[in-house]
């Protein structure tokens, strides 16, 4: 049962480092940064090694560990990785060092007009919060005990809350505390509904098995009556729909996205929100298969509404961070659609989409963050013709944008294609309608690029803006490389993800629809 503790190590290292970094005196900010960077890099290497050690062909969880935690309620510390959680852990551990490097000067920098920054908290605390967040992210994906999952799900909110509230835009004190509180309360509310469902699940398990348990593998064997399934499903679903977020639970996202520091926004939208979509595929579908089929049309409808609603609002935004947040709403629509189409192809696409969206949106937030750091404004109107002044930045921006609108050859195309193709096999009309969302994506991205990067330079003082520094180039390079590499050769990722997704749907009794047109085996692709 207990093998080499990859996941526990991945969990402990950032948690311990968070404590250490938090204890670093305020004046030694640079030391805190260096320690954090080193730790997060080690963490990433470790996650990479774990991925290499992972055997995709083997069924079930790997690297499992289980120790009893609270015996009275059958709660254990149990972690394990399958294809889905592994790639998300990899994504999280990849993004954190990038965020650390990207936020190097953000916390202690003076505001752009040179005024001293009042009300900021210490540099070590910022990096300690990032590390705590990383531990939470690893934990939430690695947990195979529903209670443990819930604990990480909620505990993760606290560092993010402080990241937004304490380290958001300097001058917008009222807005950032509003955004922080809104974020926390939305998530807490969803979390509490999930808690009710978690306890309900426990009571069902103790009714059926004699002793209650939170063990995920045991819980999915339960035979829950349809009525109860629907209620429990809703408890989990609403929590995840708020977290992801799906329309109409999304209103906190633009606020939180705009008021986060750049690093916070990347992790928030890139990874934290994935906990919602991850929860849908990991918990909702396997635990409540009947309810999932029952509610699938509702979820799909919300997903498609989200795709269009998010895109339309993104087109109308002038605040660049809010714009990126709204594009994510559209992307989460695609992910939810892929998940609830309940075909292995669409499901694989959805998981891949989670990773790709983390990369492309992460890069978009990075570039926007770089722009804001240079000009001190998130408003589109403060930029025009920046491509002349900062050609490298503009180039990176373009790549991020093209990835976000799923240009063939870049990473997101693969996942979007899989989602749409997989959905098409079951819900043709829906897939056709959703495809129109891609056109809107092209509009919001290209329109943003056009307004900020092309044309004559906005003003004389904008000519003095510097292009990307060496540090910033190092920050964006790995993401750009991955966006291109995964666009051309996504196979390694698909190989890890697909067996798990297929098994998830098969265990839940959702078989892929048989193709209506005869295909020969070599072209069958995801139609297993």
């Amino acid at each position, binding site marked *: 049962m207990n093998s080499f503790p990859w996941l526990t190590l991945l969990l402990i290292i950032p948690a311990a480092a968070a404590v250490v970094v938090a204890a670093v005196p305020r004046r030694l900010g640079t030391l805190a940064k260096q320690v954090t960077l080193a730790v997060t890099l080690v963490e990433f290497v470790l996650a990479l090694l774990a991925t290499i050690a992972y055997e995709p062909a083997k069924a079930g969880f790997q690297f499992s560990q289980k120790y009893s935690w609270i015996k*009275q*309620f059958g709660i254990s510390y149990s972690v394990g990785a399958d294809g889905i959680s592994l790639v998300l852990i990899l994504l999280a551990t990849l993004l954190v060092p990038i965020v650390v490097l990207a936020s190097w000067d953000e916390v202690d920098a003076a505001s752009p007009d040179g005024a001293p920054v009042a009300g900021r908290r210490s540099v070590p605390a910022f990096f300690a919060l990032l590390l705590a967040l990383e531990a939470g992210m690893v934990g939430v994906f690695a947990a195979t005990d529903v209670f443990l999952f819930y604990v990480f799900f*909620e505990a993760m909110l*606290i560092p993010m809350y402080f990241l937004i509230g304490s380290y958001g835009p300097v001058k917008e004190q009222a807005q950032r505390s509003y955004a*922080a509180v809104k974020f926390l309360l939305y998530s807490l509310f969803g979390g509490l509904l999930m808690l*009710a469902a978690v306890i309900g699940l426990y009571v069902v398990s103790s009714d059926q098995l004699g002793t209650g348990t939170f063990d995920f593998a045991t819980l999915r064997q339960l035979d829950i009556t349809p009525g109860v399934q629907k209620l429990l499903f809703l408890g989990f679903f609403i929590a995840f729909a708020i977290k992801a977020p799906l329309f109409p639970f999304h209103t906190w996202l633009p606020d939180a996205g705009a008021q986060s520091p750049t690093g916070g926004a990347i992790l928030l939208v890139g990874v934290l929100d994935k906990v919602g979509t991850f929860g849908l595929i990991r918990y909702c579908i396997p635990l409540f298969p009947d309810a999932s089929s029952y509610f699938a049309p509702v979820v799909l409808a919300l997903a498609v509404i989200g795709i269009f609603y998010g895109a339309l609002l993104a087109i109308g935004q002038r605040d660049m961070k809010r714009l990126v947040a709204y594009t994510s709403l559209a992307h989460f629509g695609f992910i939810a659609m892929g998940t609830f189409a309940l075909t292995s192809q669409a499901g694989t696409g959805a998981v891949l989409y989670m990773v790709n969206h983390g990369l492309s949106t992460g890069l978009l937030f990075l570039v926007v963050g770089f722009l804001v750091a240079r000009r001190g404004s998130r408003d589109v109107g403060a930029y025009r013709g920046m491509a002349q002044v900062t050609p490298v930045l503009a180039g990176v921006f373009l790549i991020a944008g093209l990835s976000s609108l799923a240009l063939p050859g870049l990473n997101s195309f693969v996942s979007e294609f899989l989602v749409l193709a997989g959905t098409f096999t079951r819900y043709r009309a829906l897939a056709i309608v959703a495809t129109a969302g891609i056109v809107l994506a092209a509009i919001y991205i290209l329109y943003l690029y056009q307004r900020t990067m092309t044309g004559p330079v906005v003003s004389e003082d904008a000519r003095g803006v510097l292009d990307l520094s060496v540090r910033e180039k190092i920050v964006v390079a790995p993401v750009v490389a991955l966006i291109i590499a995964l666009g051309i050769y996504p196979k390694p990722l698909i190989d890890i993800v697909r067996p798990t997704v297929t098994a998830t749907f098969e265990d839940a009794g959702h078989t892929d629809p048989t193709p209506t047109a005869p295909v020969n085996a070599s072209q069958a692709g995801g139609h297993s």
Partner: protein
Amino acid sequence: MSATASAIAAPQVLAQGAQGTIDVPAIQYSALSPILIVFGVALAGVLVDAFAPARARRGIQPLLAAAGFVAAFVAVVLLHARRQVLAAGALAIDGPALFLEGAILLFALLAVLLVAERRLDSSGGAIVASAAITPGSPGATAQRSSAAVQTEAYPLMAFSVAGMLLFVSSNTLLIMFVALEILSLPLYLLAGLARRRRLLSQEAAMKYFLLGAFSSAFFIYGLAFIYGYAGSVSLGRIADAAGTVGANDTYLYLGVALLGIGLFFKVGAAPFHSWTPDVYQGSPTPITAFMAAGTKVAAFGALLRLFYVAFGGLRWDWRPIVWIIAILTMVVGAVLALTQRDIKRMLAYSAIAHAGFLLTGLAAANSDGLSGSLFYLVAYGFTTIATFALVTLVRTADGEASDLSQWQGLGRRSPLLAGIFAFLLLALAGIPLTSGFTGKFAVFEAAIAGDATPLVVVALVTSAIAAFFYVRVIVLMFFQEPGADGPIIVTRPTLTYAAVGIGAVVTLLLGVAPQPLLDLAGTAATSGFVR
């Protein structure tokens, strides 16, 4: 003539009694030792206050009280396996009683630390001397700057603790009533002893006394009805009587309702909560901490015993009422807390909301509900004492900075203190990895298992509302600039720091590794109440 007649009559009565056999109740003093020790300490405290010189009193009293509570706690630990009915059925020593006695003694010990703190206020301690001086009178001006210290608070606290110990182990309604009075009367006095803001404090004492007396009257009226119904005040006999089909059910239901009102008042459940904010705000903060933890534990102990032992057979009758009261209490506590500007009033409403969460454990009406409630009480007590202790630390020149706006920017001035306070608030909000979450989980799990799912959903929604006002304080402390006349933090109040530290560490421990205490509560609950 008539005097002679009565003189003659009296021996006759005695003689009649003497002719029959008098059962001398076998009192096992060892099993009573925790209660006896605390009573002894209280009496000794009175003597010390009367005869020891003023300077010596300040040292002796807190030590005496603390030593007494420690000794009583040790006695509780030694007694842990006892399950028996004592003193002719008047007292029950059983799992829940011993568990709660232990909790009360620990909370009393922490409260002594807070009361004994003399470094916080420039004139020495939170307790005023000569509390009877009318605010606004010439004497009050002198009182404001006087550094006089009196030590009657310690014996009063000890009496109150003794009453609490008696309350949770009383096995007849009469003893329960006596205990209720013993625990309450000293608290009425203590509420009026705040050194600062005398008018508020006296108002609190007055309100607490009047409403408390009123609720005691309800209790004793209910007692009379129950006696009329069952012919006995013993909880066991009442249960037997309630189990039979009788014609006088009206008396029974009236009695249950009136006794319930008396106890719901003490736990601060809506609609009997209105004293809580005023008393919490006006009392000296160390006493508030003591009341918030100790009284809640004692009153819930009595409530659980009354409803499980005496009226256990009637649970289908009282459960709907407890549901309604629990829902009302949670909603009133959470919603009204949103509108508060004073930190102590806000915490008072939070205490009301927590009483509501605890009532879901009672509404579960099963063994898990009992053990969950026991755990919750301990977890909540430690957190709440630490919270109020921290409130005493944040001060302006004019006493505690009770207005929320004065807490603005505390995170910048003293990050550690604000961090601990934020942690405690998150625990009260029930965030995982704190004791508050484990407690809520235990209670809600029992309630769902006991078919009270709708109640749990309401509890979770109100938890979300409650989270808002806890989080609002965190926003104030961390995300806003300190005001020009921000609070002063007094340096090195060792005793208060110790209380805060202990409370915070226990809050964390019970969140991360709750198993030992859950086991203890589970053992206490499964062995059940003796009758």
